């Protein structure tokens, strides 16, 4: 044995001698000095078993006094994500630290402020808006880590603050302190008294975290002793402040409110105290004042997660349509079920988007279908304010594909399970825009909603001894309850739209507490209201950040012919768009080949040439997902240089494009297809009108002009393609599209026009559909599980039931068995005396269908890829990469499929694609809603600026419920608005006859109103409250004036149209 050892040793020696260089040059990267092995106990997700896990933690002595950030990436124009723009640098010693610290305005503010977790979680607004008085901030790692696990939004904002300060604010410094790994701050007492096991158990994780943060304060206190800088530990934890007091380590511990107040007293213009979150006060109050609880207290977090694990509670995200009803989707194994949460007590302070734990109610409390109907009817009447969609509102069911009823065996009928919220696992508090309650003289005379607001205000407004007062803030978002805010500048907020953040909802308060964030502007002005709706729908509207703009090509970028691209500049490519269209993303050509066939090409702007995968611009575009079209402005997904110039396929310039080229027989048989990255030179940017005039020209002249010839050939092909599609069962749907004629100066609407649909529109649409379908097949063949596709689920019968019964009373059967039968039955439903009837039916049937959605092909079975509306087995979006991110992804997939560029790595991750698709669907819907809200705003302005207008309207629905005031739902096609109108008859009038099967109301034997009837209405605007106006519709004919003289009942209406060329929903 010893011999062998010797042998080995010899070898080692030799090695060392031979290669002495290697051993000396390689510095040994020693594991850091101290070393911990903390043990954690955690529960497994599935079964709730408790397992022990050990992790390593290295403590270091080379971390100095934390890190600061230096901007270095911006200038060099690197393609990189935000993370690498600012690089961390270590602060070595006190001198270095002092050179970084910025002086405050005066002695008082000459301080380093160390932020505890709760400060980062709740009071970021204070930190963000106080740069002059809190110039030096320290973010401990502990706080950020806790922040990250509790509220991602807050974490992101804090990190953003850290970086931004490094990048642009030279009068502020923001330091990150990795206290968990710093040998002087890491709380290592655990190791020291580990022998004394009793003591060790008594310290909880929270205490340890607090102790670490206090250690930072001590460290800074020691280093900054004798300098001008004070060290402030900002914490809302009373216990921690108590310990800090005892510490006497050259630092002060303060609560946020007291510190903000102190700063305010020095600089009254700041009003920092208004920004302070109201969460800290709630906890203490609850204990001391003994306020009575209005709500059941929530179950503690540990019990909640235990309960969820043991199956006693269910976990899910609460989604609500309005304040009164909400759903929580829960899972039991593979099954999913939407649980209805009915009463506000059951809802127990959960707001839309919270992750909650719920307990199921006992079976007696479940809702039977008859209950549901009653409730729905009640709802219908109360909710007169209703935005009407082009497609059906995505219900709980559509959004998640989750049923909300369950069949109970013994009862043999469907029951809606109900439950109650027992606790909230994760809050979804955000910022909301709206205005605070203001008493007006008009309010006393108006409807019930206002008196309700007044009641809330009376109950909750109060003055505080320090001069501030609690106000009631009403958010624009109807899903969000009123918020109580505490402010000292109430008078300044009156009549303004402000942004408020929600902080907490203690059990003694009927409404959540929040704090003021910023003012948008005076209510009622168009720009402010537009801003509000952008905020409300969370649409990114800030200018693009510098990192994104840095990705743009230079201004004098020239488009050159490169060998990798096919030169298509000789082809007569032309584009057809609405007049004034700036972002032209598609162009067409059609030439006759020598063999008599046609070569048809669709060229799409090559956006991915400019937007590199993974670049800051790409990430920003992925986040925005879509351009948003409002009546008066457009919010682009990509910077304007690309949107309106480099990518836009303008006439008479060379542009990079992604072209699809088919060889087609004149009978519209596709012979082959080719995909190419190309350079094109568009010869004309036509408007729909111009293209239509080409189509309408008689045949004989057509061959002279290449433009006219191409358009005519395309039109004839499009007709044939369309015919085939219709035969295959594609639906022709309709929506009451209108557009505003805007005043060129003020951009105020001066007129409303119906959106004219010409054959030229259909032509472009037909080829875009063809391109999309062709591309979807191609990418699916190459990437069967990674393709980004678009599906349109088949409608379910329940949604169509209402329409079927309505059509039946007009003598038409609607068959929804499949899209072909539906298309045929819609075609058959023509009414001679009412030409609009068919369109009305199509509008209504569109609204019975759920909207189409993006998805990743790996997530659904091939059966479910089907696009119902287009009757296509697969479909995707390829043709508008300038304004939709889905198209950008598809461009990349196609480029990879034809081997011109490798697939970016993140596109090969299914989970990334899932997130991406979810985001695209959400953004798409938000953009639609915002567009509609914008139209609504302009409709109000339009009607507000003129006298009441009289117009034709159609009856969409007749309320025939017994014991209810009779009302009808009307739509005005001219303006694309609809609303509920109450009939001037009381519900128990003996002359009133209801015929529910026929959807008909007969009054006094000779006045009758049936569904689809044409009526005449008067429309005007009424001011219901300060800065709140609404449209009012009144029935003129048929008149009910026989019985009562002046019974003008009116109801608000909301507009239902949407705008612009870019709004096809499929």
């Amino acid at each position, binding site marked *: *044995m*010893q*011999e*062998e*050892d*010797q*042998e*080995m*040793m010899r*070898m*080692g020696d030799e*090695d*060392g001698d031979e290669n002495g260089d*290697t*051993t000396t040059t*390689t510095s*040994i*990267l*020693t*594991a*850091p000095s101290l*070393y911990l*092995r903390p043990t954690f106990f955690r529960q497994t997700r599935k079964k709730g078993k408790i*397992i022990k*896990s*050990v*992790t*390593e*933690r*290295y403590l*270091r002595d080379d*971390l100095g006094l934390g*890190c600061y950030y230096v901007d270095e990436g911006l200038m060099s124009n690197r393609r990189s*994500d*935000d*993370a*690498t723009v600012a690089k*961390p640098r*270590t602060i070595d010693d006190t001198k270095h630290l002092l050179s970084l610290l910025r002086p405050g305005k005066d002695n008082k503010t000459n301080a380093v402020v160390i932020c505890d977790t709760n400060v980062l979680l709740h009071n970021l607004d204070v930190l963000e808006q106080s740069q002059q008085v809190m110039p030096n901030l320290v973010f401990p*790692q502990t706080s*950020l880590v806790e922040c990250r696990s509790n509220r*991602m*939004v807050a974490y*992101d904002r804090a*990190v953003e603050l850290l970086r931004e300060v490094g990048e642009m604010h030279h009068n502020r410094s923001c330091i*990150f302190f*990795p206290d968990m*790994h710093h040998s002087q701050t890491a709380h290592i007492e655990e190791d020291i008294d580990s022998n004394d096991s009793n003591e060790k158990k008594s310290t909880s994780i929270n205490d340890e975290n607090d102790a670490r943060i206090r250690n930072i304060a001590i460290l800074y206190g020691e280093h900054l002793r004798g300098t001008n800088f004070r060290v402030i530990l900002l914490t809302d934890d009373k216990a921690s402040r108590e310990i800090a007091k005892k510490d006497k380590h050259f630092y002060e511990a303060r609560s946020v409110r007291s510190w903000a107040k102190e700063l305010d007293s020095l600089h009254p213009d700041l009003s920092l105290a208004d920004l302070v979150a109201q969460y800290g006060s709630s906890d203490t109050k609850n204990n001391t004042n003994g306020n009575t609880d209005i709500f059941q207290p929530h179950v503690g977090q540990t019990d909640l997660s235990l309960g969820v694990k043991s199956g006693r509670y269910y976990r899910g995200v609460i989604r609500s349509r309005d304040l009164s009803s909400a759903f929580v989707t829960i899972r039991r194994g593979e099954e999913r079920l939407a649980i209805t949460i009915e009463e506000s007590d059951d809802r127990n302070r959960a707001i839309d988007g919270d992750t909650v734990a719920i307990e199921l109610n006992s079976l007696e409390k479940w809702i039977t279908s008859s209950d549901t109907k009653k409730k729905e009817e009640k709802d219908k009447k109360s909710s007169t304010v209703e935005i009407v969609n082009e497609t059906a509102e995505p219900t709980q069911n559509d959004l998640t594909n989750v049923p909300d009823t369950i069949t109970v065996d013994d009862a043999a009928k469907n029951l809606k399970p109900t439950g109650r919220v027992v606790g909230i696992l994760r809050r979804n508090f955000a910022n909301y825009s709206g205005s605070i309650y203001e008493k007006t003289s008009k309010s006393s005379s108006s409807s019930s909603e206002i008196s309700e607001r007044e009641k809330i205000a009376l109950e909750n407004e109060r003055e505080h001894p320090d001069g501030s007062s609690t106000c009631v803030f009403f958010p624009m978002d109807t899903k969000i309850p009123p918020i109580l805010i505490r402010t000292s500048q109430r008078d300044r907020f009156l009549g303004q739209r402000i942004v408020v953040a929600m902080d907490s909802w203690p059990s003694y308060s009927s409404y959540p507490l929040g704090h003021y964030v910023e003012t948008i502007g005076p209510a009622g002005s168009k720009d402010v209201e537009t801003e509000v709706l952008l905020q409300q729908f969370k649409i990114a509207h800030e200018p693009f950040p510098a990192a994104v703009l840095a990705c743009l090509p230079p201004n004098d970028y020239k488009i050159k012919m490169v060998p990798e691209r096919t030169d298509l500049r000789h082809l007569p490519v032309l584009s057809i768009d609405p007049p004034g269209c700036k972002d032209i993303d598609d162009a067409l050509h059609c030439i006759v080949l020598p063999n008599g066939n046609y070569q048809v090409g669709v060229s799409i702007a090559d956006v991915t040439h400019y937007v590199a995968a993974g670049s800051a611009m790409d*990430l920003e575009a*992925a*986040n925005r997902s879509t351009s948003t079209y409002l009546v008066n402005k457009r919010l682009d997904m990509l910077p304007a240089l690309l949107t309106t110039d480099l990518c836009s396929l303008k006439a008479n310039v060379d542009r990079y494009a992604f072209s699809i080229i088919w060889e087609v027989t004149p009978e519209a048989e596709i012979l082959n297809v080719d995909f190419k990255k190309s350079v094109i030179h568009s010869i004309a940017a036509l408007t729909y009108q111009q293209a239509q005039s080409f189509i309408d020209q008689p045949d004989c002249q057509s061959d002279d002009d290449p433009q006219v010839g191409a358009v005519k050939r395309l039109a004839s092909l499009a007709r044939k393609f369309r015919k085939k599609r219709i035969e295959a069962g594609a639906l022709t749907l309709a929506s009451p599209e209108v557009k505003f004629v805007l005043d060129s100066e003020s951009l105020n609407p001066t007129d409303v026009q119906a959106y004219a649909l010409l054959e030229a529109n259909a032509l472009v649409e037909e080829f875009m559909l063809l391109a999309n379908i062709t591309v979807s097949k191609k990418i699916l063949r190459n990437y069967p599980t990674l393709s980004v596709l678009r599906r349109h689920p088949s409608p379910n019968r329940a949604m169509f039931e209402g329409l079927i019964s309505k059509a039946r009373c007009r003598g038409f059967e609607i068959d929804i068995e499949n899209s072909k039968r539906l298309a045929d039955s819609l075609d058959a439903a023509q009414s001679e005396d009412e030409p609009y009837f068919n369109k009305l039916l199509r509008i209504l049937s569109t609204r019975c269908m759920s909207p189409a959605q993006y998805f990743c092909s790996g997530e659904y079975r091939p059966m479910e890829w089907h696009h119902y509306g287009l009757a296509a087995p697969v479909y995707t979006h390829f043709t508008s990469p300038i304004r939709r991110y889905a198209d950008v992804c598809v461009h990349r997939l196609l480029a990879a499929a034809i081997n011109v560029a*490798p697939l970016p*790595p*993140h596109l090969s*991750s299914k*989970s990334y694609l899932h*997130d*991406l698709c979810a*985001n695209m669907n*959400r953004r798409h819907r938000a953009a639609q809603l915002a567009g509609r809200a914008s139209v609504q705003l302009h409709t109000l302005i339009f009607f507000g600026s003129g006298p009441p207008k009289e117009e034709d309207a159609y009856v969409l629905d007749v309320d025939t419920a017994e014991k209810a005031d009779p009302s009808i739902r009307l739509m005005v096609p001219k303006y694309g608005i609809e609303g509920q109108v109450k009939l001037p008859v009381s519900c128990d009038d003996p002359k009133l006859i209801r015929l529910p099967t026929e959807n008909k109301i007969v009054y006094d034997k000779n006045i009758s109103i049936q569904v689809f009837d044409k009526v005449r209405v008067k429309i005007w605007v009424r001011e219901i409250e300060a800065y709140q106006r609404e449209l009012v519709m009144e029935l003129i004919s048929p008149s009910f004036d026989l019985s009562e003289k002046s019974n003008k009942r009116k109801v608000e209406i909301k507009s239902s149209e949407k705008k612009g060329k870019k709004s096809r929903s499929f």
Partner: protein
Amino acid sequence: MGSSIRRTDLLALSNLRNDGRKPDEIRRMRVQLGPVSNIGTDNSSETAGGSALVEMGLTCAMATVRGPIACIRRSDELPTQAIVDVIIKSVPFASSGGDRRITNPNSDRRFIEMSHLIKRSLEATLLLQLFPKSRIQVTIVILADDGGRLCCAINAASAALIDSGLPIKDILCACSAGINISSDTTLIDLNRQEESSSHGSKSGAVHLPCAMLPQRGTLVLSQCEARISNFQTLDRVLEAAMAGCRVVFDIIQAAVRERASALMQLRNGQGTVIDSFAVA
């Protein structure tokens, strides 16, 4: 969504990994030579035996080497060189979380694959032609697994070879490297958490275990299951992994020198070798 794309972590904030290491630091590594003392004593003096216990952070592997010994079947014998026989096992309690499947090491594909990889690396290290028609048996037990078990196993086998005194070309050293995508940093010696974040879901992340003969600069093993978009990335990761191997080399060499000097002292009658295992 936006936040999930832009999400940053400790690495980007302070250039520290989650456990407090810098990106180019390996975990604390301990090498104990000869923890099992009676290997190879039962056979003739021709048979060498050695053992080693290697800890890399919380990952721990023990290897024993016997050889040259007779092959089990004549058909296995090679006329010109010895064959290497690697058996790798894991104790059921090795895994430090997550993956706690108790598997049969004889049929578990991951272990079979690992044993092949280690076998190939050892064949590249040993001077096999000195022992024709014989067999060298290496048995490795993973005692704890906190990521990087393949590298730890190779290092243990390598140290055990040294302990056995079998002739080798160089000290075989292994270390893994990877890329953290959110900050695009190269990391070496990944622990379990970093390893699992590089699998599957987070695309673009890379985990690449690698083994080399540092003094010759020969790469004997590199394994990468991630999709790497270009050669520069691969070069970068490989470079980092090789730098890690050199650090491992220094540590193993230091351990060998220490052990050797202890043995020298013992030989000269100046001290005693006390193995912790022997005492117990």
